[in-house]
């Protein structure tokens, strides 16, 4: 919502673009290899991921512009790698505010300062703050210049029916209604997914009690980019408040509503202004501020049982709703898009077996369930569900005033990417390693001279080895071989011996690793990672 007199997209600092519906009907392609329903951040990321693999797509967006309001603002390190892989990272690095530190306060006193893991070996900071409309803008800038993506705005998909070789969509736009056939469909149509409903599917899980108002204000507040959490503050006894800095002098204030508090009343402009004023007083800011946008949400952990329905794949909020503690709504969806994009492309191009697509649900739904487990832990601290949790939370906070160890119970443990250990296409981890990153995990980064390990990776699979002879014995299509020094920092981070090897997928997850690798093992590892298709050297 926005203050009285301002429209949905009437922002203090951002100009929402206006997109027309396609006018030249004859120029619309039909059929399409892939149709993407929804032009939000996840749909656009999927389109870019497919285009990167050389696959064309048609993307439908119901509205004439981006999502209104700044919504998701925390972008995790792993998402920066995704933006890099799809050729969109530069504007993010220029505009977003990177951060590593969080501070928690109990009744006005600081009880915890935590640092998220970061070092010179890392290419990106653990977290970046950026309003969602910029996220969408930067993705759109990349989509717009990509000839493989055809975007149709103001185009609502109203039906999705199976055909022998794909799915037929019915599309409505201001000029009329038509059908289009696609071999596969990506449903990126958000939390209220119509595709999900049309297919008779339901999200399952739990709703939590806590409700939060999120308000963005513009003010020249002098404080570094540090996440602040206020527990039981004077301005709102019993509540938890989160404060985040964003670019353009915008500050995000999330405050918890009390149990009996009326939602409609809480959402009144006057109530929001009074609540924000009280928070600002609490943090010692008494200057000018302007109200930009506000909204309300409650914490849910909901997901589809299966992210795949025939030739339709659900990605982003259409597949799962996660609580925002731990900032995974958007980041989790970006990883969905990145995961399905290369798999779909490889299957369509005959480079991988059909079964590759069956790895999407276990990998990405597994990640969501992991998010749920972590979010449940955070929620218990942020919004204690029972008296027992409340008593212990209050004890921990109170004890933390004198004993910092207790403050660590308030550490939100921000997102660490999920390890696809149980995936059907990940080779069981080699137990001979005494460290490094296990099979299924995201490849850790490391400095190599002035560049990073991730800069050396190939476009498709990459094989990291530490022995020239082993490198020479490998000649597999779509596998870039990278030879590193056994004494290098990277070797140490990967706990690699002289004949070790890491096989890395296009989405930067480790497909397999061997402490003592042989060319045969590597070859069969690759076959496993692309679901059974034996690749022959084209030479």
């Amino acid at each position, binding site marked *: 919502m926005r203050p009285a007199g301002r429209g949905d997209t009437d922002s203090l600092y951002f100009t929402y673009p206006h997109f027309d519906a396609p006018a030249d009907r004859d120029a619309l392609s039909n059929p399409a290899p892939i149709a993407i329903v929804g032009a939000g951040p996840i749909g656009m990321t999927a389109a870019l991921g497919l285009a990167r693999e050389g696959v064309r797509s048609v993307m439908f967006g119901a509205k004439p512009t981006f999502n209104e309001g700044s919504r998701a603002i925390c972008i995790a390190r792993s998402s920066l790698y995704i933006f890099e892989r799809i050729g969109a990272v530069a504007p993010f690095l220029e505009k977003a505010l990177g951060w590593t530190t969080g501070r928690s306060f109990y009744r006005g006193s600081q009880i915890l300062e935590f640092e998220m893991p970061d070092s010179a070996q890392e290419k990106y900071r653990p977290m970046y703050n950026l309003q969602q409309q910029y996220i969408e803008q930067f993705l759109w800038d990349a989509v717009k210049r990509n000839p493989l993506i055809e975007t149709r705005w103001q185009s609502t998909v109203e039906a999705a029916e199976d055909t022998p070789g794909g799915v037929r969509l019915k599309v409505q736009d201001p000029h009329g209604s038509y059908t289009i056939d696609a071999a596969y469909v990506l449903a990126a149509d958000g939390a209220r997914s119509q595709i999900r409903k049309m297919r008779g599917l339901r999200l399952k899980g739990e709703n939590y009690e806590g409700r939060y108002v999120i308000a963005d204000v513009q003010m020249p507040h002098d404080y570094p980019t540090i996440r602040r959490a206020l527990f039981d503050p004077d301005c709102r006894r019993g509540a938890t408040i989160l404060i985040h800095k964003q670019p353009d002098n915008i500050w995000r204030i999330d405050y918890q509503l009390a149990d009996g508090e009326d939602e409609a009343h809480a959402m009144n402009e006057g109530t929001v202004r009074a609540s924000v004023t009280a928070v600002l007083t609490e943090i010692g800011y008494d200057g000018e501020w302007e109200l930009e946008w506000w909204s309300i949400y409650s914490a849910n952990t909901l997901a589809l049982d299966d992210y795949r329905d025939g030739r339709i794949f659900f990605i982003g909020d259409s597949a799962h709703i996660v609580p925002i503690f731990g900032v995974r709504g958007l980041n989790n969806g970006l990883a969905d898009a990145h995961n399905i994009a290369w798999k779909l492309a490889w299957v369509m191009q005959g480079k991988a077996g059909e079964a590759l697509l069956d790895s999407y649900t276990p990998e990405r739904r597994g990640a969501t369930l992991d998010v749920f487990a972590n979010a449940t832990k955070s929620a218990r601290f942020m919004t204690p569900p029972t008296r027992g949790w409340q008593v212990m939370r209050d*004890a921990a906070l109170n*004890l933390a005033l004198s004993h910092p160890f207790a403050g660590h119970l308030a550490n939100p443990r921000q997102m660490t990417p999920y390890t696809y250990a149980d995936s059907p296409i990940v080779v069981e981890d080699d137990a001979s390693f005494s460290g490094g990153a296990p099979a299924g995990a995201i490849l850790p980064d490391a400095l190599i001279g002035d560049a990073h390990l991730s800069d050396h990776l190939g476009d498709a699979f990459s094989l990291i080895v530490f022995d020239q002879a082993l490198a020479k014995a490998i000649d597999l299509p779509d596998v870039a071989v990278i030879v590193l020094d056994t004494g290098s920092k990277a070797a140490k981070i990967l706990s690699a011996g002289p004949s070790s090897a890491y096989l890395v997928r296009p989405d930067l997850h480790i497909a397999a690793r061997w402490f003592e690798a042989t060319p045969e093992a590597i070859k069969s590892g690759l076959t496993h990672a692309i679901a059974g298709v034996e690749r022959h050297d084209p030479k």
Partner: protein
Amino acid sequence: MTPSDLERVYGALAEHIDAVGPAKSELFLSKLALLTAREIGDARRVLTLLDEARLNIDAAD
């Protein structure tokens, strides 16, 4: 810990519970539990103690 040591701790607990008052005694005891757990430094041992403290809890009805 000698019987008289234990008696001293027992008495001090009683006095502290009285001093913080009924509204705060639960908070006080929970803080103490966290502090003591950390001193013991062995999560499994502490969890066993939790079970032991629960034994016969209804006999107090």
